Structure formats: structure tokens, C-alpha cells
């Protein structure tokens, strides 16, 4: 009885009924009842996404419109720059950029996508953080923007080498989109927001669709024999192989964007000497990390053997030393590599590619090598 009560308190996405009818194994995730896998299993789902195309329900994520009170999108962009270290003003209409909300200590409150839809900004934030993110936006940007939570929309990701040809049948403009293009498009006649991006390292799209039309769109996409439904299990192994951070694990309030090896996401205009340097929470610390380096760094890790090294495993400089030098923040088995993969934080002095380290797993020290990420070459259509 208790278990059922617990399950009832979980939120459901507009595709919940579809997951159940497809045989999804449902688990609690960020307050939602979500499919961790379907009958095919994590391994097949992962490989199908890399080989053909996978359909993911990411409706649990937060979709927020930032509408400038002035009517000028640049004013919304300038306002949002007070909360993120990214150049938002420079995002051209129809384009999207990866960003982070930072805190006063330079840590990361959440990571997000920001798109310029011409007259407003469209944000996609993590499910577990969306309430806090929205409150943060309201507390800081309400003078300049209307913060419009788009709770009546679902979000479907279509990822993999066949994503373009599959979506082209329902959205003629899709093939012309380039990586990180984003904007309103008709998909199967429905009013959608489409971006060419994702969380797998593959080419693909994310499609925001009105909640009431989501199941029909998902079923239409699944009718294509190239498309298989993919659960959270494979979503995690795909993003891990792609070297992509999972908020709350690889990045959190204790890690700066520089420590997290996300320097590429902070444009020069916001760094020391830039046109709009600083002016975001934690700028002092984050810019100091840019200017003088940080003492630790997120790195990719490969093992010699087949034993996966998982989140929480301590890292050591050698096979016998007593003090750990770092910790694994994500780790598991990479089905496309047919080998374990992990990422974690190590002292910057130990962060060079090919540095030999050890991880403690069940009382044994397993040899690891610092490796370049992504582990699997990404296939974005730039």
C-alpha cells in the first residue's frame, strides 16, 4: 500500500501512458515516474541510438520563456547575463547556447540551454532544479522580464544518425537546421519548438510540443522502423560516452565552470578584458580560475580492465598511497566502446591526457588513464 501511495505522489509526463503501454520499467526520477528502460534493455537501446535513432521523453525538464517587458529580446538577454557567465546577447535569433546559472561562490546552480526565439528567450533547465531555477529567475529578472513557465508542453528528444531523415518526413525544414539552431517549427502540423541538439553526443533534435499533442507525435515518430523508445538508463550511458556533464553529479554548487572543464562555454566577452566581463554571480572566483587556473579539473577516465568504476570511487596517484587525490563523479559501462568509462575530478597537475591513476573499487586499486572526452566522437551537423 505504501509503495502505491509513493508512486501516486510521483508526477507523470504527458507520455506516461505511452511508456507503460510500451512496457517501460518505471522508476522515480526527479519527482517523476519515468522509464529507466523498455523491454529491449539498456544495451540495445544505447546501440540503437548510435546506429539508427532513439526517442526520449524529456518532458520532466523545465521549459521557460523569458519575455522582455520592453519587447526587445536584447533586454531579456542582458538581464539573463546577470545570472550566467555566458554571452547571451550574442545568441543570434534562431540559435541556442549552453549555459550555467552560477552562485556567489562561483559554483553551478544548474546547467541549461538558452535559445533566442526572436522576441523572447527559451530556456530548458534540469527537472530536479526547475522550481529553484524559476524562483531564481523571478527573484532577479522580474523587473525586466515576464518569466513564463511552459508547464503545458512536453519535450521529446530524437537522437541518432537517422534522426534527420525521420524528422524530415514530419518537418521539411529540419534537414536545413545546423547544430544548435533552434526555433518554432511545424512538426506533423503541430506548433513545436525544434532545436538541433541533445544529450547523447549524436546528431539529433529536441522537440517541444503542446502536452495534449505529445503522445500523438511520439507515436508517429515511433511508427518509423528506425526509431526505438529509449529510457533513462541508456540516456545516461550515451551522455557519459559523450563526455557530457550530469548536473548534481559531475557539476554542482561546489564546482566552477573552469574546474568542470567547461571553459569553452564561457565566451571571451564575459571573461577578463571582455566587453561585458564579469557581472554574473561568483564572477570574482570564476574569472580568477580563468586567469590563474583552478587547482582541480574534471577529466575523462578509462580503465584497463572490464570492471566499471562508478560514481564515488576514490582516485589515487599510485597503487599504495594513502591519501586520495580525487573522486569519480560518473562512471559505468560504455556499450559503444564495449568498455568502462568514467569522469571525475583530479588535481590539475594530474589532469593531463595519459596520466596514470588508480581507483579504489571493492578494496582493490584498479589502474586508470586520463583520457580525452568525448569518449565517442560526436556527430553534430555543424
Amino acid at each position: 500500500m505504501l509503495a502505491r501511495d509513493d508512486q501516486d505522489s510521483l508526477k507523470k509526463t504527458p507520455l506516461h501512458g505511452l511508456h507503460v503501454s510500451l512496457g517501460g520499467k518505471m522508476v522515480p526520477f526527479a519527482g517523476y515516474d519515468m522509464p529507466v528502460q523498455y523491454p529491449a534493455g539498456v544495451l540495445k537501446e544505447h546501440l540503437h541510438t548510435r546506429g539508427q535513432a532513439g526517442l526520449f521523453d524529456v518532458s520532466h525538464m523545465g521549459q521557460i520563456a523569458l519575455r522582455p517587458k520592453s519587447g526587445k529580446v536584447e533586454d531579456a538577454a542582458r538581464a539573463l547575463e546577470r545570472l550566467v557567465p555566458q554571452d547571451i546577447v550574442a545568441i543570434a535569433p534562431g540559435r541556442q547556447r549552453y549555459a550555467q546559472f552560477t552562485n556567489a561562490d562561483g559554483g553551478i546552480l544548474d546547467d541549461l540551454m538558452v535559445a533566442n526565439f526572436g522576441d523572447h528567450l527559451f530556456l530548458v533547465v534540469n527537472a530536479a532544479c526547475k522550481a529553484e531555477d524559476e524562483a531564481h529567475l523571478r527573484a532577479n529578472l522580474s523587473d525586466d522580464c515576464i518569466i513564463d513557465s511552459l508547464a503545458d508542453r512536453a519535450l521529446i528528444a530524437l537522437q541518432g544518425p537517422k534522426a534527420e531523415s525521420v524528422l524530415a518526413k514530419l518537418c521539411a525544414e529540419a534537414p536545413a537546421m545546423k547544430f544548435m539552431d533552434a526555433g518554432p517549427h511545424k512538426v506533423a502540423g503541430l506548433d513545436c519548438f525544434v532545436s538541433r541538439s541533445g544529450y547523447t553526443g549524436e546528431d539529433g533534435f529536441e522537440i517541444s510540443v503542446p502536452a495534449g499533442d505529445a503522445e500523438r507525435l511520439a507515436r508517429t515518430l515511433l511508427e518509423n522502423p528506425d526509431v526505438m523508445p529509449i529510457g533513462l538508463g541508456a540516456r545516461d550511458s550515451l551522455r557519459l560516452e559523450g563526455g557530457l556533464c550530469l548536473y548534481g553529479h559531475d557539476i554542482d554548487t561546489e564546482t566552477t565552470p573552469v574546474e568542470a572543464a567547461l571553459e569553452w562555454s564561457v565566451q571571451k566577452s564575459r571573461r577578463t578584458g571582455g566587453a561585458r566581463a564579469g557581472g554574473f554571480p561568483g564572477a570574482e572566483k570564476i574569472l580568477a580560475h580563468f586567469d590563474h587556473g583552478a587547482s582541480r579539473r574534471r577529466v575523462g577516465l578509462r580503465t584497463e580492465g572490464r570492471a566499471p568504476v562508478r560514481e564515488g570511487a576514490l582516485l589515487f596517484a599510485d597503487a599504495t598511497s594513502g591519501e586520495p587525490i580525487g573522486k569519480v563523479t560518473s562512471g559505468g559501462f560504455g556499450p559503444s566502446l564495449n568498455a568502462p568509462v568514467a569522469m571525475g575530478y583530479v588535481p590539475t597537475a594530474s589532469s593531463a591526457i595519459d596520466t596514470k591513476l588508480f581507483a579504489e573499487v571493492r578494496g582493490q586499486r584498479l589502474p586508470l588513464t586520463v583520457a580525452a572526452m568525448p569518449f565517442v566522437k560526436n556527430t553534430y551537423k555543424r
Partner: protein
Amino acid sequence: MTTTLYTSDHEWLAIDGDVATVGITDYAQSQLGDVVFVELPKVGRTLKKTEAAAVVESVKAASDVYAPVTGEVLENNAALAAEPALVNSDAQGAAWFFKIKIADKSELGGLMDEAAYKAHTA
């Protein structure tokens, strides 16, 4: 003549005289999903009942396999270490984990027969 018994932690034991062949049940493999790594106990190691004896890892998570009885490991399944996916395809056959010499047969008393195990997983 072998008898198969089950633990509440989803191990099976095929008992032949004073030797038990141990693996995980088909129910357990279906819950774990695709198995990608198996770590087996060394031959000659003495295991205590309920001690972590082996590890089975799916893409997503690691799980312990417990010794269902006390005794010495006589053999481990090298074919399984080489091909962990056997756990998914033949959990209660080719994917046995290890053979153990049962030190105290009275420890078998608390284990389940097939009917009781079926009820346990129903």
C-alpha cells in the same frame, strides 16, 4: 541426483553431495538488465554464509552475489568471466558463478525450494 535451492537474495544452488554450484536466478538477471562484468571468487577462498562472494554489474549498477553457504571455493566459471552476457541468456545453466564445498549441511535448512522461491518473487 541434484537438488536446487534458492536464497531470498536470488541466488540458486544446485546441490550434488557436498558440493553446491551457485549462480543468480533468472528473476535476478531480468531485474539487473544487461550484464557487462562479473567478478568471481578465487579458487581456494573460504567464504562465510552471506558474505559478498562475487559481483555482477549491469550497464547501470553493481550488485553483490552472496555466499549461500559457508565453504571453500572449488571452481569458478572462467567462461562467465569472459562472457558476462551469459547471465542474461542462461542464468540458471551455463552462467553458474562458482562451486563451493559445503562445510555445514545444516545451513541448507533455511533455503527455499522452487515453489517457495516462486512465491517469494511473485
